[in-house]
């Protein structure tokens, strides 16, 4: 029974997304309420699904009763459970934020619900082509939402994202086309068995892997495929930027992990040491390049975007090493990063709406004017650095331990060094916020016209950010407790 819920949890937001559009004939601004109801229902369904997972282990559902491998399978295992929970929570949290901050139009919330549906679809699907479809759904809606900002810049950034994202998704499609040509099946579990039969060193298999990784790499925004990200994040409205940064790349990284680890499996990486090294070094390059580029930024949102490049590099390294310890570290980092990055964008939005500050040099002395948001911002930023006991440290620990266990010493060095690299830009931010000379004049003028876009910052928005800051600190020790339940060893087949 619980497995049927896997289908329901996608269907609810899709169906709900139609309602605001229809209702706009009678009433404007009803979108938020529809989204709230739909996503709350979804949250309950996710809770039941998780309970089902805890009882039964891996869940699987065949859509329409058509048996695997001809039909589409929806599946949930230890790798996807945290991501599903993450999507459910963040979608509700962003809703709270966009009540005051974001665009309130009906079409916005239709898009929002469709985006959520797409994200959940990517998480629960067990079919590689279905994954492509959901990735494109996610992408389409993300492009539309990013373009919902007020000025033309957001439209242009969305267009660039569209072109880059479509190229990425198409490369992924070519990849699974090669895999299909090699094996004749599209179901993930079946594909993994057939690929092993064809032979992991076969040219077709290698080609498909390359295209898949390249395509998903664009979506995850790894260096050097990340160029769409800074513009997209800095032109979108803050609520959208938070949602996209928290979830879209995260879910794409999850998809990358799902394919590399369960379809191609760690045996593939073992049979092709060059490929495995390339993947890991690719990730390590992102870690370094992302941090270095982040230090050079003057706009806070662009800084946060490059910071994401760095963090996703760590996740890709974790997946590339492919032992249960590092994969768990990767999942913890994904989860933690999503919450942290989303909340950082929320906080940046609060600063922009209240004080009109968007650039790093305008952040001088900010923490004095807005102490709670400033403190939450500092805690979240320090979590990125890896200050214990918060979730960033826990993720890093497992990934580093996994790297050392796998004998990848140079990668372990990069992982440890990433603390210092992240510190480079976080320290500047925190230092400026707390010790800068306050009030350089921009704040006065901004307050006079009510901040950016006339949005009034509510206690709810600040409370959300503070709650997130507390959550990431608490999540650290909690994460280790979850390790057993996820049973990643089974997922990896080791």
């Amino acid at each position: 029974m619980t497995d049927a819920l896997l289908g329901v949890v996608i269907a609810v937001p899709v169906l709900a997304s139609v309602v605001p559009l229809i209702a706009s004939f009678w009433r404007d601004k009803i979108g938020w309420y529809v989204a709230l109801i739909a996503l709350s229902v979804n949250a309950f369904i996710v809770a039941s699904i998780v309970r089902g997972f805890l009882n039964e282990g891996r869940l699987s559902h065949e859509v329409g009763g058509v048996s695997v491998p001809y039909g589409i399978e929806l599946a949930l295992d230890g790798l996807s459970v945290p991501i599903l929970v993450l999507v459910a929570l963040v979608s509700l949290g962003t809703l709270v934020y966009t009540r005051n901050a974001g665009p309130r139009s009906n079409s916005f919330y239709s898009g929002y619900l469709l985006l959520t549906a797409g994200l959940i679809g990517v998480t629960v699907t067990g079919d590689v082509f279905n994954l492509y479809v959901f990735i494109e759904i996610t992408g389409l809606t993300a492009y539309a939402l990013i373009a919902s900002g007020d000025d033309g810049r957001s439209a242009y950034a969305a267009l660039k994202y569209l072109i880059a994202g479509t190229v990425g998704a198409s490369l992924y499609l070519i990849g699974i086309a090669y895999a299909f040509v090699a094996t004749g099946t599209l179901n993930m579990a079946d594909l993994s068995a057939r690929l092993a039969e064809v032979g992991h060193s076969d040219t077709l298999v290698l080609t498909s892997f390359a295209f898949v990784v390249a395509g998903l790499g664009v979506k995850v925004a790894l260096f050097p495929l990340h160029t769409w990200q800074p513009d997209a994040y800095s032109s979108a409205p803050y609520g959208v930027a938070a949602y996209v940064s928290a979830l879209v790349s995260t879910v794409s990284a999850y998809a990358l992990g799902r394919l590399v680890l369960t379809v191609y499996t760690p045996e593939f990486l073992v049979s092709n040491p060059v490929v495995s090294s390339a993947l890991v070094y690719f990730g390590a390059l992102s870690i370094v390049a992302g941090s270095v580029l982040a230090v050079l930024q003057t706009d806070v949102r662009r800084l946060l975007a490059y910071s994401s490049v760095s963090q996703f590099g760590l996740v890709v390294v974790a997946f590339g090493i492919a032992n249960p310890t590092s994969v768990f570290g990767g999942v913890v980092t994904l989860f933690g990063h999503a919450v942290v990055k989303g909340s950082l964008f929320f906080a940046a939005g609060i600063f922009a709406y209240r004080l009109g500050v968007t650039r790093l040099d305008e952040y001088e002395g900010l923490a004095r004017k807005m102490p709670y948001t400033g403190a939450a911002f500092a805690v979240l930023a320090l979590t990125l650095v890896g200050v214990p006991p918060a979730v960033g440290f826990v993720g890093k620990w497992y990934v580093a331990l996994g790297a050392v266990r796998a004998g990848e010493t140079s990668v372990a060095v990069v992982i440890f060094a990433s603390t210092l690299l992240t510190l480079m830009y976080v320290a500047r931010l925190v230092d400026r916020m707390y010790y800068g000379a306050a009030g350089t004049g921009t704040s006065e003028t901004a307050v006079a016209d009510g901040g950016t876009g006339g949005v009034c910052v509510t206690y709810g928005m600040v409370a959300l950010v503070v709650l997130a800051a507390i959550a990431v600190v608490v999540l650290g020790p909690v994460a280790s407790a979850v390790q057993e339940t996820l049973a990643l060893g089974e997922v990896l087949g080791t």
Partner: protein
Amino acid sequence: MTGIAESLLTQYYHVVFVLLLGIGVYTMIDAKNLVKKIIGLNVFQVSVFLFLVSSGYLEGAEPAIVKDGGGPYVNPLPHVLILTAIVVGVSLTALALALVVRVYQEYGTLDEEHLQEVMSDD
């Protein structure tokens, strides 16, 4: 050498796929006009469709409508996949063009270089 030449000549679908892929990517990168970039994107996507569809082809096979005594059938799955992908491509093109219209309304130009200038003046 003969092996490659032979396979290139017999699998000319593959060759065309690669050519179209290259043309699409080149257009996306090189064209200054935004609409041309979208055209390039479409060409790129079409190349992928071509690849998948042609992969299901069997020489001497019949269309995938089952009848009694029917011979080998062409695999219908790639066709189905491509139908979905075409729909996705259409929606993407529609969205992209809508964004282009918006950009044009705001900035009055569709040339990439002019746009950079105008936006940095903002």
